[in-house]
């Protein structure tokens, strides 16, 4: 299955009837072993998310965009570290192209799933592994842990993504965001893994950004005008054309009309601005202020990002009307890298 370089050659037949259903039982011990035999694949980032806040959709969009990034980032390469991720890459690409949404978590069918990618020439971070679990967490979805077989070991010293869909919070929960952070801190302490060499580092990922009703217009603009989404969309055939990865020598978008330079530079500039603007926006209401104050009090390092995995909520059942158009979905990972992932 793998070449000597570690590249996985995906076998045919991945695009099966349940695409993309990465839900085969797999023990934790087996899953964590690096298939190349050079160690253990520990998660680079951990995730906490309440049910229905877009965890699986966002992870699909992240994996998709990490792969697509090679079309706009000269020298960058991305390949799967295991067979399961190789399968998932193909299945996710197809699901996004056809506008399919992931099935909601169900106690009978759903099992934790790991994505493991190797990323190379990703300046300024160089070479990294993107290893991340799509699984229930102890903090916000403990009731689902019983459905997943052996609970996996959480790396409490890694940076965390906190996927938070403001549009899915009810009135009460929206007023008590600081208590949710408290809960994460409490569970981390209770884990017994008291190494805690690092303060808790959390990227608050505001998911479903397209559906946030009172989102400030400047933040909404960043979603609408994501330079990576634009570069991919304006390329011939859009982001889903065939043979994307065969054209690395001619990265798209580099000569396009970007007033602020190439899409990658523009993307990173916007990421920093979004963090600041989102922080200001959170500070403008009492719940956000309480969250920021609590994080400060507990020495939690916070970064903010705003994403939209699908780019649209124009759906019928679990079917989007158009192909996915992920926006700003790599910001959380790039923040995690800066936080030491």
């Amino acid at each position, binding site marked *: 299955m793998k070449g000597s370089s570690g590249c996985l050659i995906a076998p045919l037949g991945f695009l099966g009837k349940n695409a993309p259903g990465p839900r085969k039982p797999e023990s934790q011990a087996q899953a964590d072993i690096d298939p190349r035999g050079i160690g253990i694949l520990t998660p680079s980032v951990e995730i906490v998310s309440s049910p229905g806040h877009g965890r699986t959709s966002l992870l699909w969009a992240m994996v998709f965009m990490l792969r697509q990034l090679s079309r706009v980032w000269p020298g960058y390469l991305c390949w799967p570290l295991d067979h399961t991720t190789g399968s998932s890459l193909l299945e996710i690409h197809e699901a996004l*192209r*056809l*506008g399919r949404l992931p099935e909601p978590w169900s106690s009978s069918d759903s099992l934790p799933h790991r994505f493991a990618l190797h990323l190379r020439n990703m300046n300024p971070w160089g070479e990294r592994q993107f290893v991340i679990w799509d699984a229930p967490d102890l903090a916000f979805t403990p009731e689902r842990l019983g459905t997943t077989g052996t609970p996996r070991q959480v790396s409490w010293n890694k940076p965390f993504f906190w996927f938070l869909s403001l*549009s899915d919070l009810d009135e009460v929960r929206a007023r008590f965001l600081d208590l949710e952070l408290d809960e994460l801190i409490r569970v981390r302490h209770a884990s017994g893994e008291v190494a805690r060499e690092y303060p808790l580092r959390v990227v608050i990922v505001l998911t*479903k*950004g*397209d*559906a*946030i*009703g*009172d*989102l*400030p*217009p400047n933040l*909404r603009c960043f*979603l*609408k005008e994501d330079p990576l989404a634009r570069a991919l969309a304006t390329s011939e055939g859009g982001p889903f054309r065939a043979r994307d990865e065969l054209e690395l020598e001619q990265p798209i978008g580099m000569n396009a009309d970007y007033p602020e330079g190439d899409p990658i530079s523009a993307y990173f500039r916007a990421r920093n601005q979004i963090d600041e603007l989102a922080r200001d926006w959170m500070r403008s209401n009492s719940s956000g202020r309480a969250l920021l104050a609590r994080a400060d009090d507990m020495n939690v390092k916070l970064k903010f990002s705003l994403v*939209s995995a699908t*780019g*649209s*909520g*124009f*759906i*019928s*059942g679990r*079917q*989007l*009307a*158009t*192909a996915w*158009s992920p*926006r700003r979905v790599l910001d959380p990972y790039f923040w995690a890298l800066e936080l030491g992932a």
Partner: protein
Amino acid sequence: MLWCEEVGAYVHWLPVTKIQFEYFLCAAPDAHFDAPWYDEILRLNPRISPCELGARNYWRALMTGLRPSEAQRFASWCGDDYRLPTEAEWSSIFHAARKVPPKNEPFAGMCEGASDRVQEILWRFDEVAPQIAQQMRCAPSLGSQMLLQFGTLEWVQTGSPPSAWSVKGEPAPGFCGDLSIPGLPAEPLIADPESCRFAAAGFRLIRFRSPEISGGAQAKNGSAAGSRGKEAES
């Protein structure tokens, strides 16, 4: 309806409302549009009455969830000269209307022929429009007043000659998140619009003949569609 010089036609002031469509449901002898059908539609986007209409629920007053063919049947019932706009027509209307400041005169006051129910909902929309612009923190324009922005996604015909369907518009985020840019070409639909029902899909009609010529449609749909036309500043 409002005259739009850019397309040389009258355009619905707002996307078609449920109240307008209910006139059609009452009058049209069409078994397809029976009570279970309307129940299904209302499950997608529940109805509100004009007195409940506010800046955080106004989309519930709009008729959405229809398939394009069903919207076309409504257009045919309104009259032979009514139809759904093409993508190019919709874009022209949008670009023209967003450059024009909002009308100070209530639109409801211009619709002398509209029924009381339609007048009532138009009044409510007139009242709520500034709140919507304020809520969305955008400069009010005729486009936002007409809910070309912050309304629904609207069915438009695409292709030349028109042979397919797509949607245009910028829906209210609280109703349907969507990051497409109305000024850019519509994304091709993957899903079959005649086999799926999209809760956020509404529509408006255009008319290529002066509304004064025939009062039939006005009487039939009791709506702004049949109201006296006014020249828009666009």
